[in-house]
């Protein structure tokens, strides 16, 4: 019996170590993408309130991409507010070379019109877009975004969407170059943006 318990404990410890190795990430403001899991990123076309939007429309700018949904109770507002505060700290000349796109992975509830209102609340330079579930899933795969609908019987909704909450950084040439971790304070968001702005 005690042998079995020992085995279970050993198993749990091994799982904990493995889990730590896989998932532990120090709280850095910006994490480089691991080379082994290079994500292709790339162009895509989604729907904004005023019609189709393509990532290549923003060629020449550093683009911040965030995947979330407007019914998100606290995670999206936290990320978006921090990014918006970061954008506000840029000089007008810097801001002219930066764009922010909020991509809703909940097209069932988030219409382009609702997304426009939502994104602009945080910053006038923020664009809200969404698309078909298939299109979104394909883009998410290329950018390494995870999201999953969870049935949760909360007041005011039948489901929540768990999702990865990093902000993806695309350089002026349209290439996915990095990400800014969730809940990075605004002053460090500014540093991260400037790092990509000032790249040769």
């Amino acid at each position: 019996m005690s042998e079995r318990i020992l085995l279970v404990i050993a198993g749990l410890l091994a799982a904990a170590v493995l889990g730590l190795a896989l998932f532990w990430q120090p709280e850095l403001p910006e994490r480089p993408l691991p080379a082994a899991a290079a994500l292709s990123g790339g162009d895509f076309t989604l729907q904004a309130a005023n019609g189709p939007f393509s990532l290549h429309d923003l060629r020449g700018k550093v683009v911040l991409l965030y995947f979330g949904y407007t019914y998100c109770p606290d995670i999206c507002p936290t990320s978006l507010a921090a990014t918006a505060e970061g954008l506000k700290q840029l000089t007008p000349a810097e801001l002219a070379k930066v764009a922010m796109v909020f991509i809703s992975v909940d097209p069932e509830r988030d219409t382009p019109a609702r997304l426009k209102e939502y994104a602009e609340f945080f910053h006038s330079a923020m664009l809200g877009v969404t698309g078909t579930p298939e299109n979104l899933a394909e883009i998410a795969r290329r950018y390494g975004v995870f999201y999953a609908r969870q049935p949760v019987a909360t007041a005011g909704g039948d489901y929540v969407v768990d999702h990865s909450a990093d902000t993806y950084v695309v350089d002026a040439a349209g290439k996915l170059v990095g990400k800014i971790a969730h809940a990075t304070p605004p002053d460090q968001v500014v540093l991260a943006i400037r790092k990509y702005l000032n790249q040769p």
Partner: protein
Amino acid sequence: MKKLSLLTACLMFSAGVLAAAADQISVDKPYVRLLPPGVQTTGAFMVIRNAGDKDVKLVKADNPASRVTELHTHLNEGGIMKMRPVAAIEIKAKGEALLQPGGLHIMLIDLKVPLKEGDVVPITLGFDDGSSKKLDAKVLRAAPEAAMSHHHH
């Protein structure tokens, strides 16, 4: 037996008089986050300080503006952020609990009327010994400066 219950009663009485948890608690920089139009759930944030010698647990919160009030936290599971309810928020003796975006917070779920910037939401904090504390939280677009910078100083 009688003596014991008398002693217990005395202890309870003195504990109640000397140290109701709420009397040891002070709240700094409370605010409710203004959310975009059409959104019906928001968070309340604050710094809760405990001047007492005993740990105190915040076990519930109430407010008249939303239909449901819950204590929540954010869990980062392998990069996936999950927001989940918690049963209690501990405020250590002579310590503080930081309720801030991205961590522990109070959720105001299903607002009865949309909140406007500058509105004041009365919030009642309930502690594990049954005592409670009322505070007024202003609806703000962004965190008050001191609360934002608090944790990295």
